[in-house]
């Protein structure tokens, strides 16, 4: 429980956190657990139900009244469902697009954050405010001009519009997080490295990157999530179904095409596979997810 405040990336690095505090108990133990059970059920039951649908036969899905558990377990849905949308191909597409945009987004945000936090140059404040300000700019404003721009340079129906912006500091939130983290590192470390004759690139790569591991891991996870889950951008920029990432492929799965009833049991089985990578990352690196947003919550505190 107390892991959150002490490990919050930005706040934790600069502010001393009160030692294990005694939290006030607002309600009695029994009622707390009743409510807790209800919350857990709301979050988990839909997912469990998804799995049971994925295991039902194609017709059993439409039984009235619906049954909560499958009558016969149709494991073949996990083979036939993915086959119906060429799952391996789309999975590979998703991995390439997501992988590259994670690398690009994290790298350029770390570089910009380093410059904004630790180097003096004219316009430093101005760029910081422009980057932060662009966080509030609605993404839709750029959609149409960018679409036309990509079309005129031949990027329409390629992955480039989904990848290249990441390599150009595409997420201002990451720049902000990187800067905050870099500010918290003692300056004497750079001084020592400089005396040893290290240039900025050396300092950045071999001193700063190891020190800021939690920061860029957090960003990498958030970037993975954003790209893996992105639906609007691939929907707009990709026309050929062979180039789609899973998000667009999964959505096309159930869109009623030419009056055909969507195949829910196939869909749910495939959906589980689509959810697995973010799910695995979430459980493996949970604290980084929470840190990323927690940092946003506490850095803006005062």
């Amino acid at each position, binding site marked *: 429980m107390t892991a959150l405040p002490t490990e919050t990336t930005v706040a934790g690095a600069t502010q001393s956190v009160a030692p294990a505090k005694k939290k006030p108990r607002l309600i009695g133990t029994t009622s707390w657990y009743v409510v807790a059970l209800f919350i857990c059920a709301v979050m988990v039951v839909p997912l469990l139900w998804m799995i049971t649908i994925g295991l039902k036969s194609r017709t059993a899905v439409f039984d009235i009244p619906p049954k909560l558990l499958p009558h016969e377990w149709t494991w073949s849905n996990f083979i036939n469902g993915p086959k119906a949308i060429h799952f391996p191909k789309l999975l590979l597409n998703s991995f390439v697009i997501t992988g590259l945009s994670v690398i690009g987004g994290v790298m350029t945000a770390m570089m910009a954050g380093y410059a904004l936090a630790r180097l003096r140059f004219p316009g430093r404040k101005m760029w910081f405010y422009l980057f932060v300000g662009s966080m509030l700019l609605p993404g839709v404003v750029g959609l149409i001009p960018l679409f036309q721009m990509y079309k005129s340079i031949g990027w329409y129906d390629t992955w480039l519009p989904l990848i290249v912006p990441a390599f*150009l500091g595409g997420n201002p939130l990451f720049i902000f997080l990187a800067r905050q983290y870099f500010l918290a590192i003692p300056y004497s470390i750079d001084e020592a490295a400089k005396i040893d004759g290290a240039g900025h690139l050396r300092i*950045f790569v071999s001193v700063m990157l190891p020190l800021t591991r939690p920061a860029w891991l957090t960003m990498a996870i958030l970037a993975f999530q954003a790209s893996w*889950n992105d639906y609007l951008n691939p929907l707009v920029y990709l026309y050929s179904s062979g180039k789609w990432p899973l998000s667009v492929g999964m959505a096309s799965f159930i869109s009623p095409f030419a009056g055909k009833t969507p195949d829910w049991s196939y869909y749910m089985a495939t959906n589980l596979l689509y959810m697995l990578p973010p799910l695995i990352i979430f459980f493996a690196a949970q604290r980084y997810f929470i840190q990323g947003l927690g940092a946003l919550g506490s850095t803006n505190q005062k």
Partner: protein
Amino acid sequence: MTAVTTGGPANRKRGRTRGGMSRNAGSDVRAAYLFIAPAVIGFLVFVGYPLIRSFYLALTKYNGLTDPVFVGLGNFRRLFTTDPAFWPALRATGYLVLLYVPLSLILGLALAMFCNQRFAGVRVVRTLAYLPVVLPAVATITLWKFILDPQVGLMNTILDRLGLPTSLWLQSSTMSMPSVVLVMLWGVGGTMIIFLAALQSVPTELYEAAKVDGAGPWSVFFRITMPMISPIMLLQVILQTTAALQTFNQPKILTNGGPGFSTKVLMLSIYENGFPTLGRIPQLGYASAQVWVLFVIIIAVIALTAKFSSLWTYSDSTSD
């Protein structure tokens, strides 16, 4: 926002201007420009240019193939006076925001307070509450589309077994928007996490002092918790409202705007004008005008929230 930079780093800054920095100033500037170059280029190409270009396109008639034709405020005139779909879109968007934002803030804060207590298993609750946020939007929204299916969906099955009234959910024009909001609220864990961080940064001494003074739970909430987290509340109001105004995935996948115009929010209307289904001509100028209406609404919301924030946010006069 800059509070994190005070304290230790402040001393550092002083040391820097006095010490070795001036010697390396030239190399610093060169390195800085190299480090920041990708982000600056990205800002100019992907933020600056589209912003200006989109404003120009809003004043033109443009199908994406032939050159844009300048029409002045013609698009806006058509939007506000003759387009039968515009006001319903604006109304649907407003309805969504008014329904979603307060509920998300109240539930998010309640959940955060619930998870900010010492009970065995609180971590599990927190993790599970955050779980839906991590899952791909397309996956969870489609799942909910099936859960809300009136005949075979889980929702009506459960309500029916409990003897409660069922609903047509997404297929009813009165329930469609509340259903969309219900699906959005499944992701309330995102709001919770930020409130949780805010709650945990409230100094415990304040609660202890209140306890000594014999304050009840309600006065503790309204006189300590709320004032202390009000800056985060302000941030949340702004972020949630701007995000809600741009809702696209849920109505697109759940209802595609229907039934009727009941869930056709502005973003969906922009998408349909700018990127229509095959056979129809894109109206990029017109869609850009809609984008700018949305943009102006967003700026107005941010400005108004910030302007009136002094009425209800607490600021610590001792901090800089």
